[in-house]
């Protein structure tokens, strides 16, 4: 539990020298030798008491996380109810490497007074999905650095989920676009807000729908009829594999896709569409039930998006298994035609992806691949000027590969949406409304 350091060895060498001098030359050095030995024992005893105090610390941790707009605040309170203080403890907080600490120190020195509390506050930039804080580790030392404790994990960590925010401007633009372009018109009477026709009154019609102007002129009851708004089942599939987390934090393909899906899902919920979502990555596929209506559908989609996560143990060789994804998705798909939007890179594994799309299409579903071009999400920040050209060349090579993937899918008849990030939502809604029943 208590390990002596190399400093301890040097200290003991000095002590041994003083003892030898006291024995053979100068007996007056004996008190100094005794003091040195007593000091060493005192340091050991102090560390022993400190470790006891650390082991008895009560840890109260809280993580405040909501959407990717607000920062994630991690508060760890170390409560020492004992009489002995923790005077010199080094701490280190572990967390997922893709998280960015904005305020607070991830490692440092802390003191917990006796019958007192020390509070550590860490503020992270919120990133969409499920993330993990790995825990807080302490190492206790004595004042002279002669001994140190083994790393003591005082808090084992916890996971938190961040849901993507819907962008109000995107939503407004979607509503404006669909209304002005007549995309939402089904040309059939039913529930809706757009005017469809006026017809004769039938028993059971609501009185507020009666057109009193017609009654006044023709002495005949007529009612106002709305055009039925069209709706469909939508399934969003989002790939959260390693390469989808590339680029600037908070603006990576996966986070952008999540925000786009959240915006579309909110829009679709208001239009009464059935919705659900599935998350795939190198681990496997998680499906959050079949498509459901309205707000319930929206919360199902948001729940799925809050579960996108980075496979921290995966390597570059690990890839998404699209065949397994198909097996997981199939049971939740409705019998009727559904829209399936797959947000993914087209490479690697393009053939498997194509296979998935073909199989889903053969079941009568309308499948779109929304392919973020990862180069557009990446910036060469932090690179010295002399490397910029080399880096750009390499970026373009990756882009070429992705473009070839898109081309391959398109040649096979797959609908691929590969546009600028700001146009993605609009294109998806256009595809949805133009082809819905």
């Amino acid at each position, binding site marked *: 539990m208590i390990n*002596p350091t190399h400093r301890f060895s040097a200290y003991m060498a000095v002590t041994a020298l003083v003892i030898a001098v006291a024995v*053979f030359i100068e007996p007056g050095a004996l008190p100094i030798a005794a003091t040195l030995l007593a000091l060493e024992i005192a340091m050991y005893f102090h560390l022993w008491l400190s470790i006891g105090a650390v082991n008895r610390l009560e840890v109260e941790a809280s993580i405040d996380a909501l959407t990717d707009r607000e920062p994630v605040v991690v508060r760890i309170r170390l409560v020492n109810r004992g009489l002995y203080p923790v005077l010199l403890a080094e701490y280190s907080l572990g967390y997922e*490497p893709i998280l960015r600490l904005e305020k607070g120190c991830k490692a440092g020195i802390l003191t917990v007074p006796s019958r007192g509390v020390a509070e550590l506050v860490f503020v992270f930039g919120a990133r969409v999905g499920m993330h993990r804080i790995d825990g807080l580790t302490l190492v206790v030392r004595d004042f002279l650095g002669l001994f140190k404790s083994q790393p003591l994990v005082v808090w084992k960590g916890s996971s938190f989920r961040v849901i993507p925010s819907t962008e109000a401007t995107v939503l407004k633009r979607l509503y404006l676009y669909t209304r002005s372009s007549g995309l939402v018109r089904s040309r059939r009477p039913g529930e809706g807000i757009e005017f469809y026709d006026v017809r004769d009154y039938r028993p059971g019609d609501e009185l507020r729908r009666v057109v009193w102007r017609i009654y006044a002129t023709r002495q005949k009851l007529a009612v106002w009829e709305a055009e039925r708004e069209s709706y469909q089942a939508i399934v969003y599939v989002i790939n959260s594999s390693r390469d989808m987390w590339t680029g600037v934090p908070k603006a990576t393909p996966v986070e952008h896709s999540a925000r786009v899906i959240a915006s579309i899902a909110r829009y679709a919920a208001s239009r009464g569409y059935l919705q659900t979502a599935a998350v795939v990555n190198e681990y496997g596929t998680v499906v959050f039930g079949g498509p459901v209506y309205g707000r319930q559908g929206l919360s199902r989609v948001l729940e799925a998006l809050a579960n996108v996560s980075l496979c921290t143990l995966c390597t570059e060789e690990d890839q998404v298994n699209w065949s397994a994804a198909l097996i997981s998705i199939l049971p939740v798909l409705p019998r009727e035609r559904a829209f399936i939007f797959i947000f993914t890179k087209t490479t690697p594994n393009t053939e498997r992806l194509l296979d998935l799309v073909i199989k889903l299409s053969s079941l009568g579903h309308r499948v779109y691949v929304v392919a973020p071009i990862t180069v557009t999400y990446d910036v060469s920040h932090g690179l010295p000027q002399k490397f910029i050209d080399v880096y750009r060349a390499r*970026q373009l090579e990756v882009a070429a590969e992705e473009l070839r993937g898109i081309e391959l899918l398109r040649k096979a008849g797959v609908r691929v949406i590969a546009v600028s990030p700001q146009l993605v939502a609009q294109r998806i809604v256009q595809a949805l409304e133009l082809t819905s029943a």
Partner: protein
Amino acid sequence: MSTQLKKAPRQRAYVPITLIALLVAIGLLALVEKGPAASGIPVGASPLNPMTLGTSQLVDLAARNYSTAIIYSLKELEKVSGELCVFVTISPEIPFRGDEAEIIISLLKRRCSKLKVLVADESPYSNPLLQVLNSSIRVNGNRVLEVSTAAPVIAVNESAYNYSLPSPYPLAEIMIRSSHAIVLDKASTVSGGLPIGYAYPRSESAILCLANPSGEIYECGTAFVVASKEVASGVDVFAIGDGSVLLNQVLSSNKSEYMAFARELLSYLCEGNPRCTVVFDAMHYTSLSPAILLSNPAYSLQELVRDPTTFIYVVLSLLAVLLHPSVWLPPLVQLLSSLLTTILTGFASAILIFFFTLVIHKILMRNARTFHDLRLSEQAEEEVGVFAEIKKSVISGKVRLSKQDFAILCQTLDALLVLYSGSGLWSERSLDTLAELLGDRRRAYKKLQWVLKLHRKAIGKSRLPLLVFWGRAVKKLVSLIDEVGERVSERMGVNLI
């Protein structure tokens, strides 16, 4: 065949350790030169002593309304100035010397417009100060004792008296602005000046007697003068034959009359003037050095460690003094010097010491396995994904642009053109597409020819041109692709690269 791994780059500190060690050494020497703030633990009625027998609370009380200065040496007096200065000395433990008192008074007279002196002392140690002021007041250095008339008293030895009889705590009434009735503790009578305070017995069945320092009673009466005042050489002198009435133990007690007495005394001496400076004497007190304390632990236990607060105070004060380099560095250097001398002069003893040092070290370390004292590893924040890997390899400097890069980038250009027009770089319509995007047919033709020629060379289908700087060629192609990509974005509303 062996593979030699490249060593990881060594981390270099911005400030070399040698420089830090040098600065530390300079700092230590400077501290030794300056000496500790206090040579030991202040004891007695020193204004620096926060314990029961100190007068630090009186300093705090004065500091609430007036400027205060604590004088450790005559040099400190140079810093004192003000409209009105009040020099206060309470139960000094080291007698004032005549020359020293003269310097104090002359300095204070020079630096202050008006000077007053308060002497609260039961010993004659402060009389030289009164003499220098040409004051007729003297502290007699005797003891005022209250003796019950019910039992005859022949002689009293102070060290052996019974506390109930006779008592060294007579009552006194001292007149400042108003009258204050307070209990004195081992007080002395005061002679000369204008009497303003009298000690008297607390009951009718008792009388007051005066005992000399050896404890013999030589005079008895019903009242004795214990406080006087006088104006001498233009200096107001106020003398009380007892310093204990201003100690921390009485000021912090529940009896508020002491606090009222101290407050009115300060107010009277300072004339209620906020520009008054109260100068506390801290020169005439002994301080307990750690060496004395450690050499005589019994003394320390008896005299200093009276309660937990005092114990903490003593330990902290001791540590503060002991940790100061001026305490441990000179003996250490001396020890090392003598050790070195011994070793250098006696080879045999050096060998012996070295051998025994090794043996003792071995014994002391027999079960210990030591470790590097490394700090806890910090969480690294990383980028992930394909571009993070590319960045790492580019920054490592391993990546060089080559003909393979040129060939791959030609495919990028091809993919771009295919997405835009459906026909690629090697199709017949490539010139039209490129001309449309670049807006200059001639330039498009030249660029296309250059790209196709170098592509043939890159994939080994042609030997011409003979000399190609592939790095430059790749950079040129990248700028062409960027330009084409930009045009595609403008025309299609699509950001492709």
